[in-house]
């Protein structure tokens, strides 16, 4: 039952992910925003708070010139991979506090082809790090899963299964970028990029946009008959001892990752246990990330993934479907949009509006987890 301080997603909009020559990131953001408003059945004038951003495609608040100059407070967020999660955190807090009744969050991006090329100086590291050839996110993910595979007996076959699932799900998602299914053998035999990860085990920087309309309390039922409640959103930076991207050194003393801490906080705030989760969206920058994040979020134990994935548990018809929209692997990675894409997918699935990829078992509790440099994570719990 809804209470006066409940917050729910009442509208969801997306601009297709992929490559869209001639369309700017800001334009994609505005298109997603209009779709979310239409989905909620409201006008831009009804929104009394907005937050959003991109990593590399401009300032979200400038879209008021397209959406309408209503004077709405609009906070720009630029927080790397946690951009969407941070926008959601901000909007959630504004709604829970009563400072706003209806909020819009938007995330979008547009990246050039090829791997990201961040500059070390912008990440608090000397230029030597880039000159030496260490400033690559792909290296981090490869080295993290390499160590993890040795510690927990995870096979490369499992890595390939995760990617095969992503492309299979993506083939059923009209908003995905990669829509051609690939076999486990094709994935394993594709070009080695950063051992043990091959080309098709990595996502690619891309383009896309997502917007959500959120409402609080009495406004929820007035706006929709199918609300998806945002029970919690938790955002964390890294602790001393966690192994994170862009680390010239890491301590020998180890600590849980930012993901583990954000997930635990999200579950606690929502009053939900990981065992209650029916469907999840996890950061899959590469297939090893999905494997590790399954355990870091508490959705399984460390080392259980091999059997879980082999048994098909994370497939569309499995016990715990993961990344039903194809995840980053099939949708690509527009940094500012990915966190909200995860929530968008859970909203569609919990409403029963996910089309060809609709999970058929009953789903009441959804979970999302986004992760990125330099060790940030945002998690949400959504329920119907």
């Amino acid at each position, binding site marked *: 039952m809804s209470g006066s301080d409940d917050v729910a997603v009442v509208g969801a909009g997306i601009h297709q992910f992929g490559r869209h020559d001639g369309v700017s990131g800001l334009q994609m953001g505005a298109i997603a925003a209009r779709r979310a408003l239409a989905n909620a059945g409201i006008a831009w004038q009804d929104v009394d708070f907005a937050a959003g951003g991109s990593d590399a495609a401009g300032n979200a608040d400038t879209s008021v010139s397209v959406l309408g100059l209503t004077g709405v407070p609009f906070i720009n967020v630029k927080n790397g991979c946690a951009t969407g999660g941070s926008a959601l955190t901000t909007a959630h807090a504004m709604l829970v506090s009563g400072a706003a009744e209806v909020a819009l969050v938007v995330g979008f991006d547009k990246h050039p082809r090829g791997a990201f090329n961040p500059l070390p100086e912008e990440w608090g590291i000397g230029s030597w790090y*880039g*000159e*030496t050839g260490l400033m690559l996110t792909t*290296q981090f993910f490869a080295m*993290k899963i390499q160590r993890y595979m040795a510690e927990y007996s995870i096979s490369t076959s499992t890595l390939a299964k995760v990617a095969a699932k992503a492309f299979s799900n993506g083939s059923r998602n009209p908003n995905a970028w990669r829509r051609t299914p690939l076999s486990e053998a094709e994935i394993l035999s594709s070009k080695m990029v950063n051992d043990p990860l091959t080309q098709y085990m990595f996502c690619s920087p891309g383009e896309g946009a997502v917007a959500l309309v959120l409402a609080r309390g009495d406004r929820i039922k007035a706006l929709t008959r199918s609300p998806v409640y945002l029970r919690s959103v938790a955002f964390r930076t890294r602790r001393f001892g966690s192994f994170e991207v862009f680390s010239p050194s890491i301590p020998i003393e180890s600590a849980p990752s930012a993901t583990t801490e954000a997930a635990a906080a999200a579950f606690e705030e929502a009053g939900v246990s990981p065992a209650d989760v029916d469907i999840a969206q996890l950061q899959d920058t590469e297939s090893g990330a999905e494997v590790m994040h399954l355990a870091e979020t508490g959705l399984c134990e460390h080392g259980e993934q091999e059997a879980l994935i082999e048994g098909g548990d994370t497939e569309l018809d499995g016990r715990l479907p993961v990344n039903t929209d194809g995840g980053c692997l099939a949708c690509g990675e527009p940094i500012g949009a990915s966190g909200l894409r995860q929530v968008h997918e859970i909203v569609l699935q919990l409403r029963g509006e996910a089309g060809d990829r609709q999970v058929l078992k009953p789903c009441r509790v959804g979970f999302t987890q986004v992760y990125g440099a330099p060790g940030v994570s945002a998690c949400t719990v959504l329920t119907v």
Partner: protein
Amino acid sequence: MTEAPPFQLVDPGLIGGTEREPRLIGSACQRCGTVTFPRQASCPRCTSEDVHTRELATRGALWTWTIQRFAPKAPPYPEAGVEEFEPYGVGYIELPGEVRVEARLTESDPERLRIGMAMELTLIPVPGSSERLTFAFRPAEEEDE
């Protein structure tokens, strides 16, 4: 006075010692003992600003690794390094009791790398450069094992 080195370093604050016997320059917290690399002015563990410079151990064990098989983009990678790119190893080396340091590896054959193998510090040219040096780790002779 130490003699002026006949070579340039990618960052003089990073590497000390001599060309033959280089040392990585880290820092150690005087309050909680935490060792960091590169050196920094405060402790990331306990936040103390009582931190001293420390030369790190030159030998350790490979903690994890990968092979970089595509040329990084320039910048931040050197333009000349892109032109003459060859795949290279990257890993974290655990210096016993100190810290795990991320570094280039001189070995780029995955068949010759395994977690736990002994590694030692060396210097290699900055990619695409003939004068400047950066640090790396190479498989160590197991003489004192």
